[in-house]
């Protein structure tokens, strides 16, 4: 091969951004079209440096906006390349139009989304507003909790997205700063092992196959639109979760690291539990353990696959729990919150409907402290003891001023 390999230590101290950049290098991306934005910048910067230093055979396309970045990715992917990029926040918002093109055209692009708040007011810190903005775009969405996950889930993403039964683009989410700029020990794969897991890119309907000319991005009008969208939804509902599970299984065989569609922690006998995403999942696990020492049977359910939403798996994970807190890190602006709604939907037709409360937290990078979580578990336990919800259904955690609660 015409590129150099890199010697890595078994454990490297990497932040989430560098871990993702290393995964892109080891997956040998053909094309990255990017318009860097904080806090995701070091991912594409890292790719560009690896490329310039001869560790990758590929192409870095500098563009004039995130809209153009994703457009470049769509073109390169339709042409038949392995394609990835990264963005955050406002850049993600500008990409939205093309995100729908990518998924509708069934192009397996990997987008690292380093989650950051959406303006106004302007803020580079992390929340999940951009992640929520993309949740109906027809992409697969995987959520990392720490730099290790950001590294591993990139490989999983390529494996799943490029599968010819799937052929859907995939986002790998990590929390801006709290994961992207936090250095922790990351267990690495060697270049050969990582690449063999992802495998050679297998093109499908690629435009550079001159023996099979194809038109991409066709106009259908009412005649065909519904059938195309139905097909895409069908594949998301029926094919993707089994493929992700299969990729998780083979990744575990390779690395010893086990991922699940829904990450249950101490849920076997839990009375109260927190459902959340991102780096908060790990903090909540630590607090749950501490609450158990105080006699509260606490558990945590972490969302690993945000789309397609693991509806049945969530209901199964929450079986027998008495009180649940759904934590949304994005302002629902006039609704209960995405996780609250999804979980309510998943539980509504089950026999043991638990008491469900929604919490809005961490907007714009506001800290979710262990103390917040300990209070939250205590509140859930109070609901269990009272046999009814003792608070309003939606509460804000960590915001200054008079207590905010609704519904």
């Amino acid at each position, binding site marked *: 091969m015409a590129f150099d390999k890199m010697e890595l*230590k078994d*454990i490297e*101290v990497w*932040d989430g951004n560098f871990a993702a950049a290393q995964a892109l290098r080891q997956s040998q991306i053909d094309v990255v079209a990017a318009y860097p934005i*904080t806090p995701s910048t070091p991912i594409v910067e890292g790719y560009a440096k690896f490329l310039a230093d001869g560790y990758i055979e590929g192409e870095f396309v500098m563009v004039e906006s995130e809209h153009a970045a994703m457009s470049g990715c769509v073109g390169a992917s339709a042409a038949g390349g392995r394609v990835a990029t990264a963005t955050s926040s406002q850049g993600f918002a500008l990409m939205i139009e093309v995100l729908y093109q990518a998924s509708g055209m069934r192009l397996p692009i990997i987008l690292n989304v380093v989650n950051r708040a959406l303006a106004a007011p302007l*803020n*580079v*810190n992390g929340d999940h507003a951009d992640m929520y903005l993309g949740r109906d775009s027809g992409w697969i969405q995987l959520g990392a909790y*720490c730099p290790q996950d950001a590294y591993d889930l990139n490989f999983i993403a390529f494996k799943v997205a490029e599968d010819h039964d799937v052929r859907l683009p995939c986002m790998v989410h990590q*929390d801006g*700063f*709290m*994961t992207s*700029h*936090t*250095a*922790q*020990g990351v267990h690495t794969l060697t270049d050969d092992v990582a690449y063999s897991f992802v495998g050679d890119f297998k093109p499908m309907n690629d435009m550079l196959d001159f023996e099979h000319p194809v038109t991409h991005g066709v106009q259908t009008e009412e005649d065909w639109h519904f059938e195309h969208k139905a097909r895409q939804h069908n594949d998301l509902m029926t094919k993707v979760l089994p493929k992700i599970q299969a990729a998780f299984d083979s990744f575990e065989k390779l690395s010893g690291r086990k991922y699940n569609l829904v990450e249950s922690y101490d849920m076997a006998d839990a009375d109260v539990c927190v459902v959340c995403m991102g*780096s*908060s999942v*790990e*903090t909540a*696990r*630590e607090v749950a353990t501490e609450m158990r020492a105080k006699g509260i049977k606490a558990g945590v359910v972490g969302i690993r696959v945000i789309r397609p939403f693991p509806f049945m798996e969530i209901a199964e994970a929450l079986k027998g729990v008495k009180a649940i807190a759904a934590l949304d890190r994005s302002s629902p602006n006039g609704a209960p919150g995405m996780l609250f709604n999804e979980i309510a939907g998943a539980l509504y037709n089950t026999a043991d409907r638990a008491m469900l409360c929604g919490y809005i937290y961490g907007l714009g990078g506001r*800290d*979710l*402290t*262990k*103390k917040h979580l300990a209070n939250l578990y205590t509140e859930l336990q109070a609901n269990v003891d009272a046999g009814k919800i003792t608070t309003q259904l939606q509460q804000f955690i960590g915001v200054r001023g008079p207590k905010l609660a609704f519904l």
Partner: protein
Amino acid sequence: MLEIRWHSRAGQGAVTGAKGLADVISTTGKHVQAFAFYGSAKRGAAMTAYNRVADKVIMNHEKYMEPDFVFVIDPALVYTTDVTIHAKPNTKYIITTHLTKQELIASQPKLEGKEIYTVDCIKIAQETIGRPIPNTPMLGAFMKISGMYDIEFFKDSMVRILGKLPQKIIDANMIAIQRAYDEVK
């Protein structure tokens, strides 16, 4: 769990210092975390960086920290920011200053009764590296106060971490680390 908070200015190398320290500690089998808050701050703005060290995987991602050690690598920050915030009764402070410990406490009464160590990382960095980048000398002082690792092991590890820099700069950093180790009081 050992927790460290760095007080620095953007551009003085606190992030690099925190990550470098994490890297060294990681090679000894411990689990580490290094992060910082700087938002879109400009060079020279006050900022904080953080280290966590533990025997098990670190799951805590809260920003809130009650530090065991506070590193102040810019001499003015003891006056313009509260370096004692969220401190514990036994928190140890290593502060960059040209003052004696008594003069420092007299000039910032908040430090009264705290376990304070002083070293002039800025001067050491200027005299060795030739630039006021006080991050590596602070780590030399930390090795002395904490007794975490043998200074020779630590310097060898830092040579690896600084590997990409020119040899002259690496050598100067080693002298800076050793000087801070020797001079911290």
